[in-house]
């Protein structure tokens, strides 16, 4: 690779290697999560690792951090072979990690969390005192202000992440791994995080940034490695690549996220919400006066960074989360939004729901396919006779039909849901929720953890349902998916609707601003 004086990585191009992984393999049961991975990361750079969900990024980083032990392969840190059998070895080698799901003890204070495992001696008092001084210094140096005596469970997610970073810095790490750090952050918090990372880099620390967001890779990293299906595809200099190239490498062929569809012919309003608000048990306002409507023959996409109220909105509409105030009307009739146990009522009224999390909600994993294909509709007369006896034969027959029409593989109605791939699991849910003949379909993250082939199939089904005159509310954190499918797009930020656009009249830039809570028109006017 020739030196590039102008590029941000220019100085680092000759820098010695901080991390060298060779031949790393890891399997969980029959699943090969990492296969013969080679990776070289230069000291003092920000190195991105991209890949789709399930590409093996997190597994690889967990191996580097000693959370999992590799089946084969070698790890070299700063040129020296370093066997990492547990996190203790990783910490000793100067590696710190901010996990996607924070590893914090919620009832502990910030100080207690920071010293856990890095105490100075058998008694706490000196450790706490030292940590207090050190934290003050770190806070000043890196803009990482946190109240050291705050109880971590009471902090916002952004602050909790700071605590995680402080934990790593307190252990004087040279290498910092961040696993999907911005998934839960507001754009402002994310910007702040990237400033901190730049600062850390300028001090010679090495940063590994795992994400599936190409924008972040382009903006923050010096080099980027692409993973696909457990394998390392290629490592590139960020300045010399493009999002399109990365996307292509990630999925293995040129992505065509265009869905064949005709312009919508919206009919009457089927579902509408007015001033829908939801304050959760912790007192956090999840929804703030959300008003929207969806018409027959229309796909309404709801865009937004994860955690801005989309999930809660979907759950209130589906009758499994109670709203605090406001109203929801289906064909003009008000729905009960006060309880968590209204899902059966919604189904009776013609609202079907493909939940965001099919493992926890959409499917009963130990249930066989025929039990899952009628789940939620099991009390319909065609599945359930008098005296509450289930019609097993009718359920199996029904399952066979769905398996065939939705091309669910393997086509075995007696196989447990847990034994299907992600795409086929999603097809089971989709088959059930579409074939019940709903007027309104609520659908969350329809293609999360689903392979490309199944994605196209699922998208076609959603469009077909729209063309049949049904109303669809689509929640997805993948902006591409929202843009490809929606006729109209509602953007949510911080629990409220920050903007509504016709899909044809908007672009990624405008939606991005709305997702960050900025009204583009007003910005222009000011």
């Amino acid at each position, binding site marked *: 690779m020739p030196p590039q004086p102008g590029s941000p990585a220019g100085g680092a191009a000759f820098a010695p290697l901080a991390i060298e992984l060779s031949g790393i393999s890891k399997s*969980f049961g029959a699943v090969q999560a990492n296969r013969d991975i080679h990776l070289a990361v230069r000291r003092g750079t920000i190195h991105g690792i991209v890949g789709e969900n399930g590409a093996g990024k997190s597994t690889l980083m967990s191996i580097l*951090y*000693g*959370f*999992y032990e590799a089946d084969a392969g070698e790890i070299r840190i700063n040129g020296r072979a370093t066997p990492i059998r*547990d*996190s*203790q*070895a*990783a*910490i*000793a080698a100067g590696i710190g*990690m901010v*996990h996607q*799901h924070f*590893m*914090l*003890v*919620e*009832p*502990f204070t910030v100080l*207690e*969390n920071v*010293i*856990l*495992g*890095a*105490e100075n*001696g*058998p*008694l*706490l*008092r000196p*450790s706490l005192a030292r940590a207090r001084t050190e934290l003050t210094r770190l806070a000043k140096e890196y803009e990482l202000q946190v109240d050291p005596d705050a109880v971590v469970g009471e902090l916002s997610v952004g602050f909790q992440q700071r605590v995680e970073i402080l*934990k790593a810095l307190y252990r004087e790490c040279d290498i910092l791994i961040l696993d999907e750090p911005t998934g839960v952050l507001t754009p402002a918090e994310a910007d702040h995080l990237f400033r901190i990372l730049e600062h850390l880099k300028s001090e010679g620390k090495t940063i590994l940034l795992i994400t599936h967001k190409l924008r972040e890779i382009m903006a923050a990293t010096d080099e980027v490695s692409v993973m696909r299906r457990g394998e390392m595809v290629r490592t590139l200099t960020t300045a010399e690549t493009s999002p399109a190239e990365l996307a292509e490498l990630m999925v293995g062929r040129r992505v065509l996220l265009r869905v064949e569809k005709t312009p919508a012919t919206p009919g009457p309003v089927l579902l509408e919400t007015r001033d829908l608000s939801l304050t959760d048990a912790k007192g956090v306002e999840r929804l703030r006066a959300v008003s929207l409507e969806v018409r027959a023959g229309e796909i309404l996409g709801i865009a937004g960074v994860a955690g801005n109220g989309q999930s809660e909105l979907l759950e209130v509409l589906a009758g499994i989360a109670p709203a605090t105030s406001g109203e929801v009307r289906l064909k003009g009739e008000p729905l009960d939004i006060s309880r968590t146990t209204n899902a059966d009522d919604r189904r009776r009224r013609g609202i079907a729901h493909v939940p965001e999390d099919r493992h926890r909600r959409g499917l009963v994993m130990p249930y066989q396919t025929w039990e899952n294909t009628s789940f939620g509709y099991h009390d319909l007369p065609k599945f359930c006779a008098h005296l509450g006896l289930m019609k097993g034969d009718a359920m199996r027959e029904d399952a066979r039909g769905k398996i065939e029409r939705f091309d669910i593989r393997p086509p075995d109605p007696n196989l447990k849901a847990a034994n299907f791939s992600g795409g086929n699991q999603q097809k089971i849910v989709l088959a059930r929720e579409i074939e019940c003949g709903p007027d309104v379909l609520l659908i969350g993250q329809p293609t999360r953890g689903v392979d490309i082939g199944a994605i196209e199939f699922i998208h076609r089904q959603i469009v077909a349902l729209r063309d049949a005159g049904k109303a669809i509310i689509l929640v997805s954190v993948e902006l591409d998916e929202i843009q490809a499918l929606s006729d109209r797009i509602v953007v949510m930020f911080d629990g409220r609707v920050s903007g509504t656009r016709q899909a044809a009249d908007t672009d990624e830039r405008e939606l991005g601003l709305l997702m960050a809570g900025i009204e583009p028109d007003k910005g222009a006017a000011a």
Partner: protein
Amino acid sequence: MELEILLQIAGSSLRLATPLLLACLAGLYSERAGIFDIGLEGKMLAAAFMAGAVAAVTGSAWVGLLAGIAASMVLSLIHGLASITLKGNQLISGVAINFLASGLTALVGQNWFHQGGQTPQLTAGGRFLALELPLTETLAPIPVIGPIYQHLISGHNILVYLALAAVPATWWVLFRTRFGLRLRAVGENPGAVDTAGISVVRLRYAAVLICGLLCGIAGAYLSTGMAAGFVREMTAGKGFIALAALIFAKWRPWPALGACLLFGFLEAIGIRYQGITIGSIVIPVQFMQALPYILTVVILAGFVGKAVPPKAGGRPYVKER
């Protein structure tokens, strides 16, 4: 006269609270580390038997105590194996340990001593006898203070004082030491402990073994301190009352002392009076016996301050995947 009765009840409460307190603190270590333990009863019973048996054979209460602790810790190791190493169901393991202790103590006891499952009556050397603290004689004539000193403060065996000392000691270990910090952390979020480079397995085994140690002392107290030998099923639900006290105290050491004293007091009253008359209402003794359990249910129901157990309690630590 009134004062004397009051003091006798108070002293009796303290002695009855002692095994509860030791077992309660035992459970506290285990459950704070995320290992539920409904096998306190069984561990106490096994310890009571071994302590009684070995003290009878050797004539030494101290050797008996060590034997009791050993028996209890063996059961702790089984619980650890089941719930930590093999990631099994902690509740089922606890149930099994209770039965194992119940069956084995009776079986082995009958086989060993042929006295219907009892151990031989212990002589003075085989028991922990009441200690007379210094100055008892001197203070005796002083009104109020004298009797209080004589009946309440002095006149218990060494294990009673040990149990009382274990309360501040537990508090100190839990909230002032590195070990305590890690112990509390592993009961709340073992993932945080693991990623901080600390062995979850070792920490939990340590907690479970401390639990065994304290249950062992509690059991030994029953057969060699309070009584003069082991009697079948002599724990009689004390392990469960201790568990109730632990929940009552919301897994904290000082409230545990309060809860155990309260439950000990209820037991003392129940032993002394067959029913209490308040006005025209007679409160039956059975109600007094059931009261600890009723109170615990009320606490569990959250009507009087919610009892929230350690978050990771009852679940084995499995790295997600």
